[in-house]
């Protein structure tokens, strides 16, 4: 049962990572990266790493996403590929 949960979370994480790399709008890419961070935080908690999951949720999904959005606002929002 827990194997099914871990496999499902890995599939979601893979899809989120691919979406973050493929979309042309950089703001959407940074939101997809935050989603990827959050799903991976869930994966850490399911595997018993509760401290690491807490850290990843706060830093990855929160702070890194905010820093990306600020940098994209100061540079360019679209990308060529």
């Amino acid at each position, binding site marked *: 049962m827990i194997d099914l949960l871990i496999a499902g979370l890995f599939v979601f994480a893979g899809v989120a990572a691919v979406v973050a790399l493929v979309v042309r709008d950089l703001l959407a890419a940074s939101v997809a990266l935050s989603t990827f961070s959050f799903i991976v935080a869930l994966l850490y908690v399911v595997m018993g790493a509760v*401290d690491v*999951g*807490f850290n990843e949720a706060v*830093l990855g999904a929160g702070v890194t996403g905010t820093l990306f959005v600020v940098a994209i606002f*100061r540079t360019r929002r679209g990308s060529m590929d």
Partner: protein
Amino acid sequence: MRVPTLAVLLATLVVMLAAAPGLAPFGDPTAPASGHVAGHYLEHAYHDAHTPNVVTVMIADYRSFDTLGETMVVFAAGLACALMLLPRGRRGRVPRFLHRKVNLIAEVIVRIMLPAVQIFAFYVIFHGHYSPGGGFQGGALLAASILLGRIVLGRSRSQAAFPTALGRPLGAIGFAVFAGIGLVGFAAGGAFLQYDRMPFALPPDMLRNWGILGIELGVAMAVMGTLVSIFDDLSVGGR
């Protein structure tokens, strides 16, 4: 995808899958990584430091020197951001998305949420001995609350709550608190960062408990100050 990229990816895949059978199976309790020192930490952490959270004891007591180095890395990253984005000429102009009139709904919700996030952050720092948490998580939560204030509440109120000039000194003070607690044990005759030689009248495991709490506070201050200073440099610096 160009051919060299595809070749590198395929080569990496083949090498990693060929090396995978050398690892222990998933979930194996007799894996070599889980013996020796890990068993010692799990069996002796509560007895040595009177702290249930073994990961906190490990990073703040048994391996506190690594944590000191990590705090130094975070502070150095904040300095690197500042050096690359020094304001030129007059003090940097604030970008428009931090200035514009904010949405009333977002402002009301954030004004209710911010104190709750900060109280939760302090809870996470102090309760890191007994539940998942500790200095890094609590410091990052405090920084996230300040960043939320900067984005939604506008420049004047957010700067009144936490001025930009306070960020980096707070990071340096956090690092100094960490190193200072280490030096207290050093001055009293033990090793650097040895908490049970601190000159207070408590049993050794309670001294280690309080030493862990002290350095977690230092780490929280360092992480909070540095993350807020990185955000301020990225949003304002270099104009």
